[in-house]
């Protein structure tokens, strides 16, 4: 009798996606309008101030690549968590209004806080995301002892629409230059200035990833339905709460770095599931690594396809993601 664990058999896929991420992160900074040589970048013979290759690598392209990896990995993993929480494979990290709240926060900072630096709009987007999360949570728990996923979904979708209206209102009040900046922010862009935004988001990211690691098995049980999960010994309400808040915090942090970059949180988990099946203990880490590699790749395309023009990466993911999503819908029938 074969006693091989279906889980262990899939470990190589996780390792492979991890290696893929490492290769992408290392290779991506070498691609761009100015060719770099590895020897020059890591040369110790000339001082950093005179080494143009090293400056481009470490000050411009590496932070951008790391931002892509962080945002891509976090959005893909958060997508898995939200899909598991809502029992809906078509859910995304943005379904519950986190991104709309973040966008509204950023719009307000850009329009009314003329003195705010870039870090300011990131902070404001995080605050906006937090407010959206609390409103949705309050609605979903108001008339329900647990966390009603139906109410969660409906209030998330409604809040998305409401916040979008507020965003338009704020945009209407703002001047030309601010509207332009706001629009750029909404497109999703990884053009980060140095490592500061990454470091600011890091604690949120690390905290929610730790929660994700615990969530993998509870999400498996939740797939059977709330009552079946409870009867197998899971504290369903706690698992749902942890999933909701950690997924939201992760999404908020990712959006504060790169803006609302679309489709990563839905394409990546689906591609991963096609290969490894449904077990969240494999899907979560594999999606995170593959999501990081995927967004790094998309950003390379965004930087180079119309060089020297650098497109916002959100356009690339949307162009790939839209048709993919439709294919997915058709395939499910």
């Amino acid at each position, binding site marked *: *009798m*074969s*006693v*091989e*664990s*279906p*889980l*262990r058999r899939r470990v190589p896929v996780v390792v492979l996606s991890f290696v893929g991420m490492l290769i992408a992160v290392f290779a991506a900074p070498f691609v761009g309008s100015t060719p770099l040589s590895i020897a020059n970048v890591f040369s110790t013979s000339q001082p950093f101030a005179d080494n143009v290759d090293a400056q481009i690598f470490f000050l411009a392209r590496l932070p951008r690549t790391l931002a892509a990896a962080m945002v891509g990995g976090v959005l893909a993993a958060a997508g898995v968590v939200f*899909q*598991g929480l809502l*029992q*809906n*494979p078509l859910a995304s990290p943005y379904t519950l209004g986190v991104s709309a709240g973040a966008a509204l926060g950023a719009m307000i900072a850009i329009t009314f806080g003329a003195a705010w630096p870039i870090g300011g709009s990131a902070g404001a987007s995080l605050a906006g995301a937090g407010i959206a999360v609390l409103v949705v949570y309050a609605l979903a728990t108001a008339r329900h002892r647990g966390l009603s996923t139906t109410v969660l979904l409906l209030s998330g979708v409604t809040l998305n629409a409401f916040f979008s209206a507020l965003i338009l209102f704020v945009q209407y009040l703002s001047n030309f230059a601010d509207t332009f900046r706001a629009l750029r922010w909404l497109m999703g862009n990884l053009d980060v200035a140095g490592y500061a935004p990454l470091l600011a988001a890091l604690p949120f990211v690390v905290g929610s990833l730790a929660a994700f*690691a*615990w969530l993998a*098995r509870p999400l*498996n*049980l939740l*797939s*059977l*339905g709330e*009552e*079946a999960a*409870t*009867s*197998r*010994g*899971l*504290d369903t309400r706690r698992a749902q709460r942890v999933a909701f808040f950690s997924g939201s915090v992760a999404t908020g942090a990712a959006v504060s770095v790169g803006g609302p970059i679309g489709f990563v949180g839905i394409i990546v988990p689906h591609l991963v*599931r096609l290969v490894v*099946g*449904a*077990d969240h*203990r494999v899907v979560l880490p594999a999606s995170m690594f593959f999501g990081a590699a995927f967004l790094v790749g998309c950003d390379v395309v965004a930087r180079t396809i119309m060089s020297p023009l650098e497109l916002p990466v959100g356009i690339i993911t949307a162009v790939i993601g839209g048709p993919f999503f439709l294919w997915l819908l058709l395939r499910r029938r």
Partner: protein
Amino acid sequence: MLLVATNLSFSYGRNGQIRAVDGVSLSVESGSVVAVLGPNGSGKTTLIKLLSGALRASHGDITLDQVSLAQIPRATVARRIAVVPQDTHLAFDYTALEIVLMGRYPRLGAFEIEGPDDIRCALDALESTGTRDLAARPFTQLSGGERQRVIIASALAQLDERYTNDTSQGETRPILFMDEPTASLDLRYQLELAALLRRLNRDRRITIVLSTHDLRLASSICTNVVMLANGRVLATGPPEDVLTANLVGRLYGVDEHLVARAMA
């Protein structure tokens, strides 16, 4: 007595004015097979959920081996009590084996991965429900009858003590709850299910509590019948005493001559 419910009530809706279960007292003996009968909306499903601990009663108390069910930790309850719902729909493509392995959840630590013993236990459970060949198949592609068997296998893996190192607990006397197990099955699956349940009860000493509309199932495999009408117990006792044309007629609001003809 294994499981004792005393004066159990459950109400829901605004201000809780809808009483699904209203002052039900019953006891489940170890090794018995209990059928809960009643018309649609009589509170069968709610009663099953209350007894299995999925719902908390508004009033009344349930004890498992003289200990209040509400006081027992969730995972401990899950090692003793398993539930097979009417139907299971999945949003994701788990294989049958993965579904059965989820039954091992209350026996593993937070980050523990199923070991060879758990896999063996799961394959065993599939074997005893006749679904060993389906282990690698996606659950969503199975037929209704196959899906139910896999879920029963998952419940068996959940209740199975033989693969646990911890033998300090002694005999644990597991209980399996089933909500309308024959509702969506064709005749062959109905008969096979009855045989399977009888086998589990006899060989594994699993106590079974099921809700059903199937009088034949109730009379063929059950040792005890609880008749539920409007959330209250109408009658209770061994099937040969309770499944009379008169009582069944009163239970469903049908003329007893019609019942007598249907049951003949």
